[in-house]
C-alpha cells in the first residue's frame, strides 16, 4: 500500500511537472514571434456566438487586408482571438490576461455592452486602447475613461431614433415596453421610453423579464390586456425570437419594434413567420448604401459567407487600428490612444465616416431602420447622420 502511494505521488508529481513544462515551452514559443499583437475579443461561443463570430471576422479581415497591402510600415502584426462568451465575468478575466501580455497593444471588442462595461476598468488600468465595434450602452463612454473608442451610435441615440420614427409615423400609438434585464436591453428600453414619452407618446407598460426557459406567456398575457399597438423589445434575438412567436400564438398582434440586438438572420430563423413586420433600428448600413460598402460585402462573402450582422462594424474597428498603426513610429498602447484622440484622425469606413469625440464616441455614427418583409430584412429608412 505504501509503495503504491509513493508510486502514485511520483506519477502525479511527474505529470504536473510535464504539464507545467509544456505550458512554459509553448508560451516561450509564442513570445519568439516578432512584432506587436492586436487582440480581438468577441463572443465566439455562447448564445450570441453567431453575431460574435461575424464581428470578429470583420475585424480580422480589415487587419489582414492592411497587412497584405503593406499599409503598416512593413510591421509584422499578429492577431489573437479571445472568447468572452458574452459573459461579463469571463470578459473581466480575459481583460486581465490581455493586459498582462505586454505584446498586445490594442483591443477590438467586446461584442456586448455588459462585457464592455465590466471589462472597461481593467483596460483603463493598463492604458489599453479599446475600439468597440458593437456595444451601444451609452454609459460605457461616460465615465471619463480616455482609452475607450466606439464605432456605433449609442442607445441614447438609437432608441430615440426609433422613438422619433414612431412619433412621426403614428404619434397616437400605444406602446408597451419589455426588456431582457441586461445592460443593453434595459438601457435601450429606458432610453426609448424617455424619448417617446417626451415626444408626446403613450407607454402603457414597462416590464423586465429574465427567463432562462424562454416562457414569456404571462408577460404577453399582461400586455394583451392593455391592447398595445406596438411592443418595443429591449432585447437580443435569443429573447426576441421566442417572444414574437409566443405573441402571435397568444393572439397579440402588435407590431414589434426592437434595436440592433434583434437584427440578423438568426432572429428570422427562430421566429419564422411570426417575425413579419418586426421593425428594428440598426447600426450598420445596407450593402446598397455605397460602392465601398457593396465592395466590402462581396469581399467578406467570398471569404466567410454571408454577413450576419456586425461584420461591417468589426471591419471598421479593424480599419481604425490599422490606420493608427500606419501613422505611428513606435507602436505602443499609449501612443495609439493619443493618435485616436487627435482631431486629425478621421477615416471613411464601410459604415460611414469615423472620428472620435473626446469621450471616445464616434461623431459620425449612422443609423438605419429595417423591417421584416416576406422573411427578409428590408431597408426601411436610409442612413441619417
Amino acid at each position, binding site marked *: 500500500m505504501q509503495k503504491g502511494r509513493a508510486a502514485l505521488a511520483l506519477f502525479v508529481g511527474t505529470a504536473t511537472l510535464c504539464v507545467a513544462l509544456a505550458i512554459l515551452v509553448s508560451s516561450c514559443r509564442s513570445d519568439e514571434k516578432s512584432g506587436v499583437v492586436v487582440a480581438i475579443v468577441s463572443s465566439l461561443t455562447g448564445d450570441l456566438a453567431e453575431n460574435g463570430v461575424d464581428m470578429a471576422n470583420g475585424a480580422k479581415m480589415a487587419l489582414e487586408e492592411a497587412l497584405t497591402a503593406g499599409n503598416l510600415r512593413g510591421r509584422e502584426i499578429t492577431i489573437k482571438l479571445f472568447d468572452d462568451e458574452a459573459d461579463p465575468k469571463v470578459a473581466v478575466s480575459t481583460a486581465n490576461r490581455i493586459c498582462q501580455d505586454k505584446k498586445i497593444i490594442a483591443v477590438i471588442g467586446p461584442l456586448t455592452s455588459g462585457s464592455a462595461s465590466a471589462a472597461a476598468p481593467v483596460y483603463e488600468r493598463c492604458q489599453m486602447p479599446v475600439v468597440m465595434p458593437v456595444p451601444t450602452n451609452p454609459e460605457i463612454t461616460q465615465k471619463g475613461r480616455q482609452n475607450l473608442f466606439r464605432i456605433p451610435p449609442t442607445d441614447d441615440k438609437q432608441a430615440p431614433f426609433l422613438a422619433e420614427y414612431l412619433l412621426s409615423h403614428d404619434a397616437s400609438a400605444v406602446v408597451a415596453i419589455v426588456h431582457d434585464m441586461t445592460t443593453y436591453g434595459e438601457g435601450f428600453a429606458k432610453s426609448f421610453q424617455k424619448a417617446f414619452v417626451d415626444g408626446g407618446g403613450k407607454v402603457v407598460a414597462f416590464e423586465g423579464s*429574465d427567463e432562462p*426557459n424562454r416562457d*414569456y*406567456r404571462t408577460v404577453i*398575457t399582461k400586455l*394583451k390586456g392593455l391592447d398595445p399597438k406596438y411592443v418595443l423589445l429591449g432585447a437580443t434575438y435569443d429573447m426576441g425570437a*421566442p417572444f414574437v*412567436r409566443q405573441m402571435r*400564438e397568444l393572439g397579440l398582434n402588435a407590431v414589434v419594434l426592437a434595436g440592433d440586438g434583434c437584427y440578423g438572420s438568426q432572429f428570422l430563423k*427562430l421566429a419564422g413567420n411570426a417575425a413579419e413586420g418586426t421593425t428594428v433600428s440598426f447600426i450598420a448600413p445596407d450593402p446598397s448604401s455605397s460602392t465601398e460598402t457593396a465592395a466590402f460585402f462581396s469581399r467578406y462573402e467570398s471569404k466567410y459567407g454571408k454577413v450576419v450582422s456586425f461584420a461591417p462594424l468589426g471591419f471598421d474597428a479593424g480599419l481604425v487600428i490599422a490606420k493608427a498603426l500606419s501613422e505611428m513610429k513606435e507602436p505602443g498602447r499609449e501612443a495609439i490612444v493619443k493618435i485616436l484622440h487627435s482631431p486629425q484622425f478621421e477615416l471613411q469606413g464601410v459604415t460611414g465616416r469615423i472620428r472620435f469625440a473626446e469621450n471616445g464616441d464616434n461623431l459620425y455614427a449612422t443609423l438605419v431602420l429595417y423591417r421584416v418583409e416576406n422573411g427578409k430584412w428590408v431597408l426601411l429608412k436610409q442612413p441619417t447622420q
Partner: protein
Amino acid sequence: MPSQILLNGIISGSIYILIALGFAIVYRTVKFFHFAHGAVYAVGAYIGYALMVHGGIPSVVSFLAAALGSGAVGVCTDRIVYWPLRKRRAPDMVFLIASFGVFVFIQNLLQLVFGAQTLSIRMGVVKVGHQFFNAVITDAQILILVVSGLLSVGLWVFVRQAKLGKAMRAVADDRLGASVAGIDPEQVVLAAFAIGSVLAGAAGVLVAYETNIEPTMGMNAILKGIIASIVGGIGSIPGAVLGGLFLGLAENIGIWKISAGWKDSIAFAILIVFLLIRPGGIMGVKVRGEQL
C-alpha cells in the same frame, strides 16, 4: 384573474412536474441530489432536435427515442460515476460534487456537438392557438398537459402496483431490509435512474417543441425541479406533482401584478418559506436533517 394566467401556470407547472418526478424517483433510492438530472433533460431536447431537424424523423418516433436516449444517459451516469463511488462508500458530499461534475461535462459536450447558439425544433407556420375557456392554448401545450398527466398517473400506478415499483418503495424505505428480503438494491437503483431520466428527457423534448433549446437550459430546469420536489415533499411522487403545479401557478400568478423579473425570486422565496416552516413539504415527508 384572466384564465390565461392560470393556464400558463398549469403548463409551466406540468414541465416542473416531469422534472421533479424524475428527480424524486432517483432521490428516493440513492438519497442524494442528482444534479446532472438537469443535463439529462437538456440531452432529451437535443436528441429530439437532432432526430427531427437533421434526421427528418417523425415527431412521435423522435419523442420516444429522445426519452429512451435520455434514460440511457441517466443509466450510464449511474454506472460510470455513481456506482464506483457507492462501492467505495463515498460520503454524500462526494456524490453531490460528482453530480455537478457530470452536469458540467454533459452541458459542455452538448455545446461542442451542437454549438452554443439557440436552436429551435419548431418549424412551419406560427399561428394563433385554440380558444379554451377564454384562454389560448397551442398544440404543443396540449401535448405537454396530456403527456405530463399520463406520465404522472402512470408512474404513481407503477410505484403502487408493479413488482419493481414496490421494490423501489422498499429500497427507498430501508435499503438493508430490502436486500435481506431478496431485493437487489443495485437493480432498483438502475431502474430508478432509467425511469427518472426518461421522464427528464420527455420534459426536455416537450419544452423544445414549445420554445427554444440551449445547452445551458438544464440549470434552471433542475433548480425548479428541486424546488418543486422540496415544496411537495422530497422524494414523494404525489408531492412532486403537487409541488410542480404549486410552483408553476405561484410563479405565474405572482408576476401577474408585479414585474415579471421577480419570477425566480418568487420560486426561491417559496423554497425558503417551506424549508423554514414546513421542511416536509406539502405531503409532510419526514426528513432527517442530514438528508436535505
